[in-house]
């Protein structure tokens, strides 16, 4: 399978199956969905793809490729910050 070229113009991380929302649609959706979250322990994590840097190479990571393994996903605020 051909490895997609990773560059500035490539899409950033996104949920698999999500369609890009129009500006108006996004704002009305946010107003209506206060407090609604599909994230809950005991429920499947949303599948996603994201560009990544790993050991000298730029690559693409897809969560569902990691099924069969235990995965720890760590979010953090920013590179070059302190904690």
């Amino acid at each position, binding site marked *: 399978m051909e490895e997609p070229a990773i560059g500035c113009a490539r899409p*950033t991380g996104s949920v698999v199956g999500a369609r890009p929302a129009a500006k108006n649609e996004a704002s009305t959706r946010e107003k209506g969905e206060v407090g609604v979250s599909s*994230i809950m322990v*005991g429920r499947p994590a949303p599948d996603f793809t*994201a560009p990544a840097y790993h050991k000298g190479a730029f690559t693409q990571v897809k969560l569902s490729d990691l099924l069969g393994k235990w*995965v*720890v996903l760590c979010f953090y*605020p920013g590179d070059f910050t302190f*904690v």
Partner: protein
Amino acid sequence: MSVDSQFVHKMWNDHELSKMVAGGVPFPMLADAAGHLGTAFGVYDDQAGVDVRGRFIIDPDGVIQAMEVLTPPVGRRVAETIRQIKAFQHVRATKGAEVTPSGWEPGKKVLHPGPDLVGRVWEVWSPADE
């Protein structure tokens, strides 16, 4: 994963992190530039424009087993994450026949949930066993 691009991740790894960890970061550093993934996982702070300090343990079936979210100033404790993974692996291996009480680490007492144990946990476990 942060909102920084994969290019900034490379620079941070090469210029700082590889000085803390020999060989640099051994796992992929993901880019969430638009905050879509932080939003999907409920950890994107749209006022600050960053993902807060969320950590998710996902099992081999893709199910979230644990999550911990902190505001940015306070760091995580890796030993606790590893402890939790081992506990979830133990529960999974025993298909839930054994569950891990508070403070469990490998080798410590487990519990066997069932009607007979209801109201009788005190007979087999106490906080001194943590």
